[in-house]
């Protein structure tokens, strides 16, 4: 089937198209440069046309999500919509059910979402949930930062075996890349402890976070994976942690990139949570300026923000000791999940309030990062959903970025605490994003950072993942009409996924099965086999599951998108 999206105003930063009125054509699921006269016309006259959104960091599938749903029926009771002829029933706000997740991303014009943390032992569960989510392509990042084998290789600085291990474990778990969460800290949590900063040794392992991060970055580049290491650094959420953040980015500087499809060697995730100055919650203030300055000077770093949206939400992270601290802080119910030999996770409900000085300053820090990182290709739109707020708030974050007026209003009319004025410089930043920059932070840049060449843009040959929003850029002043912006980005006029029309006028009109994107490293199979022989006795002794049953079988990855990489090339 051929289609032509007519007369839209196109923003496609990858191909340097900045608000041009032009047609977008697609055929058999791919963007093409011409179609026959039989093509079906989809009228987008004077509407914004972009590639479908790419979310670089969200939590949508996996064991900690389901613990959230199991233990928070109060969240599932929000957002309820009965089933329709096309859609299944929807439930949930911060931790929506799997079908709901797919529909809501589609309504925002998204086509690809990265599940940012997959524990290998429960990878099958993550993939089961992916199968229950419609409409998206979903890569999942496997957790490596606290894996016992990784700690051992990092201690010995054995990069060769580490790279082989990563290659094999991506195959076993059908993972896309290397996720590191509070390296060493989640292992220390096995004893109820944490590591504080980069040079605190991990109990019993005689290795530091610095060594773990450096070794994993080196191994990542040795393999030449499509994505860089995806790093949630130490000290999340602690006042004064901006120093750790800067030191962490700095320790990667000697590593040379070994991939043509991306620019960075480290992706720093939810940087808002890592840009805090001060020494405690009383003198807590923004440290965004220094972090942004570092990023502006070093193009080997990309980041996503993790913007606070001032909602009640469910925090969940493999940074389990931090979640226990959070539970101690707010007294709400604490869930925890420690996973043998690999990682841990914690889950705590949280209410971010504009009346609370700390939450308000956190809100400001996120926006400061967006506004102070000069190059929009280095900063990406996320709420670390559901941690800083649910992903359905992206349109609102976009409206904040496009409207200094709205931000000023929030500060002046008391929607956020007055501490924002004292402890951040947000009020002095009058930068406003334009549509091209919004397209960059929400699709082009994330696709680039992940090495996706087939999405995030509208060039010929790309997947026909397209979003049309009902806004006329020549006719609107986003600074004043921020509500219109929020509404439009939340209710796509048209969402196309792989050439299939999923959303029309904000409603789901069809659904398709999601696909898992994973990285298959080729060329070191013999090394992998040799390594497995060394690993197996340890595996059999300390895991409680047989290796045969540990592996993610084809059964769990219907119709996957396999990204083949020649090791080292």
């Amino acid at each position, binding site marked *: 089937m051929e289609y032509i999206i007519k007369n839209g105003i196109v923003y496609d930063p990858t191909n340097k198209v900045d608000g041009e009125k032009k047609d977008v054509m697609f055929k058999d699921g791919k963007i093409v440069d011409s179609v026959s006269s039989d093509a079906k016309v989809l009228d987008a006259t004077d509407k914004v046309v972009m590639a479908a959104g790419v979310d670089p960091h969200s939590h949508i599938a996996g064991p900690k999500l389901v613990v959230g749903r199991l233990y928070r029926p109060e969240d599932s009771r929000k957002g309820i919509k009965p089933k329709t002829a096309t859609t299944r029933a929807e439930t949930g706000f911060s931790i929506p059910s799997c079908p709901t997740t797919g529909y809501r991303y589609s309504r925002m014009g998204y086509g690809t979402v990265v599940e940012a943390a997959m524990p290998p032992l429960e990878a099958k569960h993550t993939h089961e949930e992916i199968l229950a989510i419609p409409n998206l392509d979903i890569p999942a990042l496997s957790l490596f930062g606290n894996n016992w084998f990784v700690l051992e290789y990092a201690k010995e600085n054995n990069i060769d075996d580490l790279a082989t291990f990563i290659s094999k474990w991506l195959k076993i778990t059908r993972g896309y890349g290397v996720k590191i969460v509070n390296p060493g800290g989640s292992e220390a949590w096995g004893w109820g402890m944490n590591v504080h900063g980069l040079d605190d040794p991990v109990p019993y392992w005689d290795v530091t976070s610095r060594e773990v991060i450096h070794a994993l970055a080196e191994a990542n580049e040795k393999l030449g994976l499509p994505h860089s290491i995806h790093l949630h650094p130490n000290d999340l959420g602690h006042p004064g942690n901006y120093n750790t953040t800067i030191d962490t980015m700095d320790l990667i500087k000697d590593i040379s990139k070994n991939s043509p499809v991306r620019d960075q060697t480290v992706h720093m995730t939810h940087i808002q949570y890592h840009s805090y100055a001060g020494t405690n919650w009383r003198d807590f203030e923004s440290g965004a300026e220094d972090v942004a300055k570092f990023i502006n000077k070093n193009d080997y770093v990309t980041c996503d923000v993790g913007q606070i949206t001032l909602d009640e939400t469910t925090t969940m992270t493999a940074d389990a000791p931090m979640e226990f601290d959070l539970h101690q802080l707010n007294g709400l119910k604490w869930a925890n999940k420690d996973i043998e030999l690999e990682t841990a996770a914690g889950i705590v409900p949280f209410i971010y309030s504009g009346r609370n000085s700390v939450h308000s300053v956190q809100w400001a820090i996120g926006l400061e990062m967006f506004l102070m990182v000069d190059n929009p290709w280095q900063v990406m739109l996320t709420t670390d959903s559901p941690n800083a707020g649910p992903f359905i708030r992206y349109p609102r974050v976009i409206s904040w970025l496009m409207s200094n007026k709205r931000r000023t209003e929030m500060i002046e009319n008391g929607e956020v605490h007055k501490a924002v004025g004292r402890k951040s410089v947000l009020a002095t930043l009058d930068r406003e994003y334009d549509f091209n920059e919004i397209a960059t932070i929400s699709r082009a840049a994330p696709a680039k950072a992940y090495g996706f060449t087939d999405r995030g843009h509208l060039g010929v040959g790309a997947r026909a993942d397209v979003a049309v929003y009902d806004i006329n850029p020549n006719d609107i002043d986003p600074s004043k009409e921020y509500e219109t912006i929020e509404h439009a980005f939340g209710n796509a006029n048209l969402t196309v996924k792989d050439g299939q029309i999923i959303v029309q006028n904000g409603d789901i009109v069809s659904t398709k099965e999601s696909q898992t994107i994973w990285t298959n490293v080729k060329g070191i199979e013999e090394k992998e086999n040799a390594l497995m022989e060394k690993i197996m006795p340890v595996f059999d002794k300390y895991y*409680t599951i047989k290796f045969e049953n540990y592996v993610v079988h084809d059964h769990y990855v219907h119709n996957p998108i396999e990204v083949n990489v020649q090791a080292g090339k």
Partner: protein
Amino acid sequence: MAYEEPITDYDEIVENCTCAFCGCNCDDLTYLIKDGHVVGVRHACRLGASKVMEDMDQRLLVPMIRNEEGDLVETDWDTALDKAAELIAGSVRPVFYGWSETSVETMKHGIRLGELVGAVLDNQATICHGPSLQAVQNAGYPVNTLGEVKNRADMIVYSGNNAMNSHPRHLGRYSAFPRGYFRKRGRFDKTIVTMDPRYTDTAKMSDIWVGFEQNGDYEFYNAMRAVLRGKKLKKDVISGIPKEDIEDLVEAMKTTQYGSLFFGLGLTHTLSKQRNIDIAINLIQDLNKFTKWNLVPMRGHFNVNGFNIFMAFEMGFPYGVDFSRGYPRYMNGETNTIDLLTREEPDVFMVIAADPGAHFPGGANRHLANIPVIQIDIHWGPSTEIADIVLPGSFIGVEAAGTSYRMDGVPIYMKKAIDKPETCRDDEWIVRELHERVQKIKGSQIASK
């Protein structure tokens, strides 16, 4: 126990099979197969092995429909499925109960069917660990995978649970006995505590037995919490336990390196029900201020946890989910099977991989006897006696593959080792067929409107 000769007469060995008995889901079983039957099982406990090996005992082999005289008579698959589909399509308040001994893949078709006809989907948690799930919703859920216990734990508590009898390999494979990374000497490096009014087999092999009074759980746990928070106990004896013993116990729990508490129905079903678990979870949370502690509910059926996980990721609620309004509702005491049956609401009941006939209260079973009951199962049991249509399924982990979730949430793909009897069908196939047939009936109803 009489000595039994090892089995040497078999054609084939299948390794790494997963046990379809309890929530341990031991996945290291070896089946010895002869003439398409499992004649021996290695590594399994006696409960698991007997379930796998004596599978053909009272096996349901052919579909049956109850005739007007009240007898179950054999029929063909088409007739049985059509009749079942007709009943489901025509029902106003259907309940689909069970699911804990079948695969997640089967549940996927079940939920589609449930959504289509507006059924209630519920599982055995409604009569077993339901209070635990309610407590989890009140207080939290600090858990670990079983390997954490094996590798790290130096103190393990069994509370209201007799693992030696109910989960026989639990102590051997996951908790007390295995040699872990940080517990190289296995049992010698671990203190085992049993908190139970009864002097169970688990208590017998424990280092410490705390035999508090029947229904004394809540008071006892509260006392532990109070001591942990530095309070002086005012009574000398609490729930039958001298206060000095409680103080010593708390001190031991506080100063251990890694503790793990496993609790069973002995805690969920005494007088204070979910409040017992609330307080146990709170105790674990308090202990984490001093050292590391987690807890895990000892789930019974091999996939009872799987249904709760599955329902939660598909629809946001763990069990007792009512689709009658077109969206999922979950209200304890209202949308649970026993409540519905005792209120005599359901007009069709489908039971899959469960045995309400053996376990439900009399009042609930009385209503089941009055309404059409469709049974999907592998063995004849009390539920077959009240079933009107019987659809013989297949044995997950032996005759059919499928996903199951262990008590700690670790998913396992239970593989198929032998072929099912020719006249039986896979559970997954049966429920999919029912869905398709009901859809057809519903479709023609809409067309004729």
